[in-house]
């Protein structure tokens, strides 16, 4: 699998570290235990398009939001965390 890093260009999967679901955001500090538990543990786990965190660990060290199809592994978009509004 290849991922196109917005800074470094197309690179082999082996250069990246995978973290997990990027559709969940850290709740505000006072949101409570249920919100933080959901942030850590509740996952939609879709069969299909998924947005997930990859870090270009062996390259520019930037965290990237990657849109990947969980069945075909097709990659639709790669956006750096820094500078993307969400």
């Amino acid at each position, binding site marked *: *699998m*290849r991922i196109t890093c917005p800074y470094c260009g197309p690179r082999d999967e082996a250069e990246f570290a995978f973290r997990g679901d*990027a559709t969940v955001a850290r709740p505000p*500090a006072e949101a409570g*235990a249920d919100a933080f538990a959901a942030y850590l543990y509740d996952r939609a786990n879709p069969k299909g398009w998924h947005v997930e*965190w990859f*870090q270009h660990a062996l390259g520019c060290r930037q*965290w990237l939001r990657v849109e990947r199809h969980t069945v075909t592994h097709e990659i639709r978009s790669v956006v750096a*965390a*820094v500078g993307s509004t969400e």
Partner: protein
Amino acid sequence: MSRIAAGGRIDRSRSLHFRFDGTAFEGHPGDTLASALLANGVRLVGRSFKLHRPRGIFSAGVEEPNALVALRSFARHEPNTRATVVELFDGLVAESQNRFPSLRFDVMAANQLLDRFLSAGFYYKTFMWPKSFWETVYEPLIRRAAGLGKATQFADPDRYDAMHAHCDVLVVGSGPAGLAAARTAAEAGCRVILAEQDFEFGGGILREPAHEDWRAAQLAALAAIPDVTLLSRMTVFGAYEHGEFGAVERIADHLPEPRPHLPRQRMWTIRAREAVIATGAFERFVAFPGNDAPGVMLAGSAASYATRFAVRAGERAILFTTHDAAYDDAFALQDAGAQLAGIVDPRPDSAAQQAARARHITVHAGCEISATGIDRRTLSSVTVRERKDASREVVPCDLLMVAGGWNPAVHLLSQAGTPLTWHEGMATFVPGTMPAGLHAAGLVAGAWGIAQCASSGAEAGATAARACGRDAVAPHLPAAGAIPDTSVMPLWEVNGKGKAFVDIQDDVTADDIRLAHREGFDHIELAKRYTTHAMGTDQGKTGGILGAAVLAEARGEPVSRVGLPKFRPYTAPVTWGALAGEHVGRHFQPTRRTPLHDWHVTRGAVMMETGLWLRPAYYPVPDDADAWASVIREGRAARRKVAVADVSTLGKIAVSGPDAGKFLDLLYTNTFSNLPIGRARYGLMLREDGIVFDDGTTSRFGPHDFYMTTTTANAAAVMSHMEFHHQAVWPELDVQYSSITDQWAGMSICGPCARAVVGSVVDLDIANQAFPFMAVKNCRAAGVPAKLFRISFSGEMAYELHVPAGYALHVWEAVLRAGEPHGIAPYGLEALGLLRIEKGHVAGSELNGNTSAHDLGMERMLKKRGDFIGRTLADRPALKDPARQRLVGVRPVRRDQKISGGYHLVARLGETQSQGFITSVTQGAEVDGWLGLALLANGPERIGTHMIAASPLHSAEVPVEICSPHFVDPENARVRA
């Protein structure tokens, strides 16, 4: 001898000598081991997996289920190698497998007497009684009886290489379709890689001498184009995402030994824009009683032995076929000098049947084979049975050619996501719509005949070239020939008395499939695993679909509804050596050395691996009786005089910027934004779920300048953790951070004389008031830039001196010179551990991913105000419960007794309810005997009580007292002295 006098692709001018089961034979270059054995009249080559039935050579290719031999000996001994793909070389030595004492007389053939009890899945229903027999009788017996070949116990002397390649078009298979596709794409200007698993290019053409000129012309043209890579002896075993393919190239398998400086095999990772799969098809057999006898062979393979290898696989042959094309295979045997004793065809009539009669071959139309006869372990006759009235005739023969139809080799296509569809005419699965970037050409796509396959290949090559932005020119096609009627009568099974196998390697019969269905394993994936059908090294290439068909009939559904089990890599066996490549031994992982590594080694340190690092464990001197004597001596030097340790491996991260303090406040449970300049502070880091992640000492050198340390093991993880939270969670923070672990060396100088030693090396006033406990300062040490920290892991008065890595040795030696009058000793990782355990400092064994701040007695470090990672979930009652296993110290009641890490703490002797366990142990430098840290339920409340430290594995039951984890100087007087 069964060698045909003329023809074939063998070099009769040279003879190759080889041995099989101790007997010497001769063959020629161009032979496989199988063709050479057949040429020498060897019909018996193995014994089947479960029932130890005699087996002969079944095919002429990678689909071979039977002829598994062990090649070579000692370190290069190679079990389970298919004789049909072994290129014969001079001096080859092969042994048959799975038989004792010999192929002819195998005692395990007695299994056949028990065959009624050895049906599919028998092991799920047996070996249960009596219970004690499992470990003592059944398991050892099964271990000895199971499996085929035996692996060598010696280390592999050969090297294995790895290659990464990119291309525009990867063509897999060099038959007419592959050759045409490769040439078309290459002439359009594409970079082409052509991979062929055989040692000769040509695929099906290799047994069609009439098309040899065309084959040679394509190869010559391809060899002349610079951007074409031709690779024979190369098996593409897997199709992965994004056009990535895995392949293994057998560089030296056909040589007695690899040539010097060359690897034995090479693993290729190929990234292709477009791929043309031209892998052809595998012939299938039919499940009839006795279809496993030596002498039963696939029809196309028998013809291949005749035309490519000039070997008659038998003298008196019968063909059993369900379609016309196989008749040509029978004719090839006849042309090679074999007597055709008959053709058995379940169909009433066809064009081929008439052609056969014209050759004076008896055709038994509307008939099937219902049994085989064996004499001296090889085929001697077949029973031909009329389908209408069941009348029988026994026909003598020594070769039965079976032609059930052809199954396109869709493995790579399916792995890459191509669905399979049912083809009525061919009665098999063919590829459906392919995903982008993937093309199927030739027989694998259902084309038939050299010309049609070449045309299909040229078209695929042109389409692939166009997808790469290049225009294709007119293809070079062979002359078109007559295409026979390719329709196949779907005949999967013949009923009758005796075992009708659907998997010849694993001894799975049609009855076994029906048994699986009766027992509820009616999905193809379940039936496969329950019976082990198609799970052998041949992966059911010749009989997989038979099992699906038998299952379909049992379910009353068409075969297309049952389908085939999912295709996954690898398509053929791949050696571990090829997968490991150069990553073996010391090269399995990188080795990290500290800047002082050479000094430690020269000093005679016993080095140990911690993660990727090599660190000194201890520095033995001649007077030390054993390892612990060294460690205790070093520990005592640290507690009584002065000692120095290399702590360069600790993670170090420079954190700077206006929001550096704020960032640290979010990372740590305690506050760093208020840390005064010139001070260090111990910090605790949690995971977001409230479990302790890491700890370290972070110092402030300026208003926007922090120097963070982490544990050695977590340095990389903490860095990633910081990067994620800054980039993804708090991008508004104005902070920068970089890893400087390798850029700075660190040494820890501790002991009552530490101040005197350090004071004479650095240019600072380090009197207690000028430089109190937890002070930090930039300075110069032995004339070079340095950072001095007054922090203590050992519990003694201590300093850490960090210098740029290039100056490490210079400063280390200066410290040693300054310490000599005080009796300074270097101390290693073991003594580091001894000191911190005596002091009660937690480390990796306690920060084990399960402990909370409360468990470690650090709840007061959780700041009351302000957000930090892990704050909310650390507050969950279950993580603060006193009944959790919490940090305590532990000592044997009798000081001469030993305790070990992992021992469980139980209330009394014989009790099996564990209350906790010992996490770290050491012999004491100041404390007498063994001591340790432990995590114990209600731990701190049980200080002063006695328990038993138990380990049934070590037959240990040691009475221990629970005490404070701080064995030495609990008031911290020494560190503040």
